[in-house]
């Protein structure tokens, strides 16, 4: 989630409130304060509120929230004669473009700082790293209208930002730092999006890089902004930027976008209307509020609101990118009203508690194992084939036995375990320096095929740990579980031959026990004998339905 740096002098001036007041109330608007410094505050805003990724946006929201300037803010857009033609050739690559012109804006350091921050955060959030949406900001005086947006071949060339020589699209994608970074978005394409002005010079190669010629400097007074992508996410981003420059005193002018089959005029900063029923509000909040209270709450969140029939007509400002459903508005009513003013009430929902057999079985086994003087441990279920099988002298195959991860992060964690015993041997290896004897156990999940199974495993280690010691434990455990069982010679190579037994219940092998083979002990760097057992509890009991 984006962390925005807000400078106190700027924020206090724009909001018209002290930093103490702001710090106290800002979290109740919905954010996490990351750090508070003398000059600035770092605030993490949620991904559903990209309009708060700039000081202008935060100031706007706070002025409503602090009752300094509640209600809908009007945004005017002037008509002008800016035209941009969308060519057929770009539709298959990056089909949508919106744009606006900003006049009479003083490009101070503050504005540059804020613009760079919001551009980066919008690219990450709405833009999904520029894939879905990318922004270009230009010095209007260097842009010659009318513009065209078209798909160009890879040998098309221009001077990209931060370079002083002409480069082809192909060169940019392999050599320019931004080209290398964003080449993945255009992978496999034979046409590349390009905005070209009436002098036949490129001004922008979205979503990668602008041209050097339209660079914004401290002498810039007017801006041309383009936003490219696929769907309404481009409108969301443009509206947020336009509102931000409007708040800075700039005049927003419309650009006519001429598609092969239609004409759009952007930006559209008219608020959208949403009807919210009172019943819906009361139902979701769980309590009733009078109309005035609801309207005040909405205005604090900078909506326009009036009573209409059995509900409210709510005007959603164009910069709000997150309102998909009336519930999104009701949440803002709750925030505007104040979470701290809502009186919590325990729900009347009357039900009877019920345990799940899985955990009941697990608890029973844990009780028995504690009674047999074993210390409980818990371990990771992520492991690897080396530990689970190779070190254990065991074999297994992916999917049939174990679940392999498609993109493991480390060599230690490549599969889900099918057996707990190797994890316990790893624990013993980590604990060789502690006094002997050591007796530990785990009752937990393994995943065989794609399904969880419940297993129990225990190990005993000391200088004389042996077969009969672990057999006593298995005998006692099976007795407590009231299970008739037999021990048969086991071929499990993790144990010493002739000191390994399978636990057989009704003719089915449900586990094994024995003395761990010295070869295995060596691999786990264990220096004392180990006797161990493991049982598949899911084979013995109904552990209930798993979702």
């Amino acid at each position, binding site marked *: 989630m984006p962390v925005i740096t807000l400078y106190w002098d700027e924020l206090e001036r724009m909001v018209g409130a002290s930093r103490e007041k702001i710090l106290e109330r800002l979290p109740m608007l919905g954010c996490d304060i990351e750090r508070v410094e003398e000059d600035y505050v770092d605030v993490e805003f949620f*991904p559903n509120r990209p309009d708060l990724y700039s000081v202008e946006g935060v100031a706007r929201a706070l002025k409503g929230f602090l009752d300094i300037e509640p209600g809908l803010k009007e945004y005017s857009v002037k008509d002008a004669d800016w035209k941009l033609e969308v060519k057929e050739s770009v539709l298959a690559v990056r089909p949508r473009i919106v744009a606006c012109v900003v006049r009479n804006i003083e490009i101070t350091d503050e504005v540059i700082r804020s613009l760079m921050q919001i551009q980066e955060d919008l690219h990450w959030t709405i833009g999904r790293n520029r894939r879905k949406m990318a922004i270009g900001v230009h010095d209007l005086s260097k842009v010659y209208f009318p513009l065209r947006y078209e798909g160009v071949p890879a040998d098309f060339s221009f001077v990209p930002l931060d370079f002083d020589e002409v480069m082809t699209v192909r060169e940019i994608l392999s050599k320019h730092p931004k080209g290398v970074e964003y080449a993945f978005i255009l992978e496999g394409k034979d046409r590349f999006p390009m905005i070209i002005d009436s002098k036949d010079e490129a001004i922008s190669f979205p979503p990668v890089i602008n041209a050097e010629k339209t660079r914004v400097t401290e002498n810039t007074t007017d801006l041309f902004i383009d936003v490219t992508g696929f769907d309404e996410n481009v409108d969301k981003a443009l509206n947020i930027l336009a509102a931000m420059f409007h708040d800075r005193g700039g005049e927003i002018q419309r650009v006519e976008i001429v598609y092969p089959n239609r004409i759009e005029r952007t930006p559209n900063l008219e608020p959208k209307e949403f009807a919210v029923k009172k019943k819906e509000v009361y139902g979701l909040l769980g309590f009733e509020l009078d109309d005035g209270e609801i309207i005040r709450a909405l205005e604090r969140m900078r909506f326009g609101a009036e009573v209409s029939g059995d509900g409210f007509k709510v005007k959603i400002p164009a910069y709000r990118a997150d309102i998909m459903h009336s519930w999104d508005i009701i949440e803002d009513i709750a925030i505007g009203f104040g979470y701290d003013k*809502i009186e919590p009430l*325990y729900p009347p929902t009357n039900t009877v508690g019920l345990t799940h057999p899985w955990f009941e079985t697990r608890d029973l086994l844990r009780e028995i194992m*504690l009674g047999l003087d074993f210390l409980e441990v818990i371990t990771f*279920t992520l492991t690897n084939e080396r530990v689970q099988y190779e070190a254990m002298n065991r074999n297994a195959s992916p999917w049939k036995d174990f679940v392999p991860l498609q993109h493991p992060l480390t060599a230690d964690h490549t599969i889900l375990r099918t057996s707990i015993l190797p994890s316990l041997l790893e624990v013993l290896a980590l604990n060789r320096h502690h006094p002997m004897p050591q007796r530990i156990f785990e009752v937990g999940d393994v995943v065989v095929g794609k399904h969880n199974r419940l297993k129990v495993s225990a190990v005993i280690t000391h200088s004389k740990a042996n077969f009969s010691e672990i057999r006593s434990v298995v005998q006692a455990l099976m007795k407590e579980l009231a299970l008739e069982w037999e021990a048969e010679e086991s071929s499990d190579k993790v144990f010493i031959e002739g000191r390994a037994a399978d636990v057989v219940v009704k003719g089915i092998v449900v586990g094994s026990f024995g003395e761990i083979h010295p070869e295995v002990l060596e691999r786990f760097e264990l220096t004392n004998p180990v006797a161990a057992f493991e049982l598949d509890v899911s084979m013995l009991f109904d552990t209930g339905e798993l979702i």
Partner: protein
Amino acid sequence: MMLSPIEVALIRALESGIEYSLENAAETSGISKDAVLKAAHLLREKGLADVITKSERRYYLTEEGKEYLEKGLPEERLYEVVKKGENEIDKLKEKFGREFGIALGWLRKKGLAEVDGKFIKLKKEGKFEEREVLEKVKRGESVPEKFLKELLKRKLISFDEKKEIFVKIVKKPETELKEVVRDLTPELLASGAWRGKEFLKYDVRIPSKVVYAAKFHPYERIVRECRKIFLEMGFTEIKGNFVQSSFWNFDALFQPQDHPARDMQDTFYLDDYVELDEEYVEKVSKTHLNGWETGSTGWGGEWSLETAKKLVLRTHTTAITIHYLAKNPEPPVKAFCIDRVYRRESIDATHLPEFDQLEGVVLDRDVGFRHLLGLLKEFFLKMGFEEVRFRPGYFPYTEPSVEPEVFVEGLGWIELGGAGVFRKEVTEPLGIKGKVLAWGLGMGRLAMLRLGMKDLRHLYQPDIGWLRDIPAIMR
């Protein structure tokens, strides 16, 4: 008075007032030297015996001492030479070499000579007894203390010390000695021979051998506590597989398919696909695309069935709760899940690729956000957090969303989990009737608070020393 059998044996065997060496005492009493010593110490504590340590010194000549015995001490030799008239310091230095300084030093110290310009002048007749003393030491004869001290200081003699322990019975108890019972044995019980005897008293202050309790993992104690709270509040426990479809992990929760949380970067995907229930799929996909009948705009764009079928290691227990609610869509339902989840994250002190999550859901018709806050307040109160407050939060599948904070002495307000009401885009396509109040939290954070842990890795890579040490009782 209570005496142990060995004490009795010793006190009976030895005569009072006589010092016995250990060997002697052992021989006389017929018990081992170690036992004699032990018994003697016990008797001494009761004022019945003395344990006397005597040390004997045997003096011998050092190499230097042997040399001087043969040649005479340097000062003696210098004296003789000067007496013969050779008194020029420079020449004497040449003759005596490094011994000159020692020799002159001693002559002056003994007041036999003084330096007069470049010459040594004798002051009186010299008498040198040291050689005789050295001779006596060599022969092992006794020597006055003052000489020994001086010679030791000059490192002309040295000694070996030999310690010997003697036992002396100071007095014998007046009353008749009773034999005390040390170990109560089945034989003593059977014969009744313990009757009339006294039991040896132990020093109860001495700690015994350390043993460790077999016990639950401390973290499992916290899990049990949470589970108990849910059950007390009337919730049904549910359990699901670790391997889930992307559909139940993401799509059913209205997470758009291009959401960053669904990135391969953050989620462990498996290279396999699973068939999905068509009825659910149709409504969920429509909701993603255009909101279906939920009143939502939906996400627009495209929705891929293939993407939804792909298997993942579940990234949250909500994959289980939402599926359970889809199967049990009629209110009232209260369910909880405390179980393992996976995130594709590098391990460090506060991040693990797998950890446990706690989650509770309430499905009912006439409940709302206020009731969610009521639930949270009650739940945290039962966990021992008396002060709870609420801030707006954001989770993709809840609206409204809330971040509860609890007050912890010494730490202040701590964010503990997240909560919200499931969006209609989540509940309606699955046929869930009513509103779902949901909250969850990472058990690791709770463990850190409750167990004072700084490093979460210790939970799953257990140190047996830590497990043995940490008390079963919880703060």
